[in-house]
């Protein structure tokens, strides 16, 4: 093998694109060709430099936006019945209804490996839905099985003090087991650049995240519950706090939850 032939094979060899027989011939030729050996070494060095670059991960805010779109792509809300085993791809099985919780669990599982980095810090939603996006992204982190809460306790006297020193206000914490919403714990999140307290509750198999922070406006407002892509979101102001609750539950359950929080806040005054 002459050098030009040999040289033309260096890159395909490096890239694993030579047929087995050719590889053997090339390796034999390489013995006699210091120039091509040098070239191969340099290319290997270049490769290892490039592969030092850390892998990119899709930002979780982007995943949350995508998740919303995927939910919106499904024509109607799936009924809440236990799903059949997933049909194998390509089979002609009838569409199987899925549990919302299962769906969000899948979405959430995608978030498991993500760090807390807020890469999309510059992002602002075109439709003013940035707060919703952030709530949803936060909720998907709550929904993930790994570590839904930073402090896991159904005891409000454990959860409340945990926030001390972590955020600059003391959130009211109530267990609502008697109303059907047991407290699971608390966590920190970031909403529009601010560190906030998030309380996580359970409703049957579903989780709710209640974000709350001191209100700058005064006066209470009644909870407004909206439904978006399978999530119920409640927004209201009560007893000096802005409250946002999000969960993959029915809007009427969300109304019950919001009313229960208000009641507990009143009783706790």
């Amino acid at each position, binding site marked *: 093998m002459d050098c030009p032939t040999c040289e033309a094979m260096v*890159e*395909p060899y490096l*890239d*694993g*694109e030579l047929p087995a027989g050719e590889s053997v011939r090339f390796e034999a030729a390489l013995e006699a060709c210091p120039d091509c050996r040098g070239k191969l070494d*340099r*290319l290997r*060095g*270049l*490769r290892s*430099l*490039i*592969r*030092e*670059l*850390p*892998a*990119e*991960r*899709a*930002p979780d*805010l*982007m*995943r949350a*936006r*995508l998740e919303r*779109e*995927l939910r919106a*792509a*499904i*024509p109607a809300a*799936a009924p809440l019945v236990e799903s059949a085993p*997933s*049909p194998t*791809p*390509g089979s002609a*099985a009838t*569409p*199987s*209804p*899925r549990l919302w919780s299962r769906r969000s669990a*899948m*979405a959430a599982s*995608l978030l498991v490996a993500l760090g807390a980095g807020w*890469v*999309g*810090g*510059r*992002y602002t939603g075109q439709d003013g839905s940035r707060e919703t996006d952030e709530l949803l992204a936060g909720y998907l982190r709550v929904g993930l099985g790994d570590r839904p809460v930073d402090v896991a306790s159904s005891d409000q006297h454990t959860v409340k003090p945990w926030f001390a020193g972590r955020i600059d206000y003391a959130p009211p914490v109530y267990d609502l087991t008697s109303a059907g919403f047991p407290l699971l714990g608390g966590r920190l999140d970031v909403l529009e650049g601010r560190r906030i307290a998030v309380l996580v509750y359970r409703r049957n198999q579903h989780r709710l995240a209640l974000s709350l922070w001191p209100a700058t406006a005064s006066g209470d407002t009644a909870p407004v519950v909206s439904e978006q892509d399978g999530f119920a979101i409640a927004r209201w102001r009560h007893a000096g706090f802005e409250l946002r609750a999000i969960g993959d539950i029915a809007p009427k359950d969300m109304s019950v939850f919001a009313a229960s929080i208000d009641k507990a806040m009143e009783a706790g005054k």
Partner: protein
Amino acid sequence: MSEAPKPDGQAVERFRIVMLPHLDAAYGFARWLTRDPIEAQDVAQEAMLRALRYFHAFRGEEARPWLLRIVRNTWTDMRTRRSLEKVPLDEADDVVEPGPDPEQSALAGDRRREIARALAALPEEVREVLVLREIEELSYKQIAAVLDQPIGTVMSRLSRAREKLAVALGGRLGKE
């Protein structure tokens, strides 16, 4: 061209299983194409939605090259659209400012930063080939499918890309 059928629940579910695992790859490729983290999100997100729309045409070939091809086409289209719209320059937020971004500065050490900068500075035609080969680790055939180019073109661009990058990183490579 006929309207794509609207995906049903089952198609969306299959899409999650088949395509969503490649979201990081889609975003990563978009990062190297756009060289901007925010724009990359837009491209990757738009590409995922296109992929969902055309998922009925997916015939069980390899998912990642299929998706990356859509990412590339999406980027090409978005850029074309933008240049047609002649976006006024005073929309400063949309203008990609070269310079360190939070992720870049978080990269450990000058060395990686230098490599990233050199790679990002390559002309797009050769940059994308090199990224697909060395970072996405696609085969020549897969790269040819992503770029819709013959394998010979892939090989010659890859060769040029390596030459250019080696020159740019000369100092790093020179050390024995």
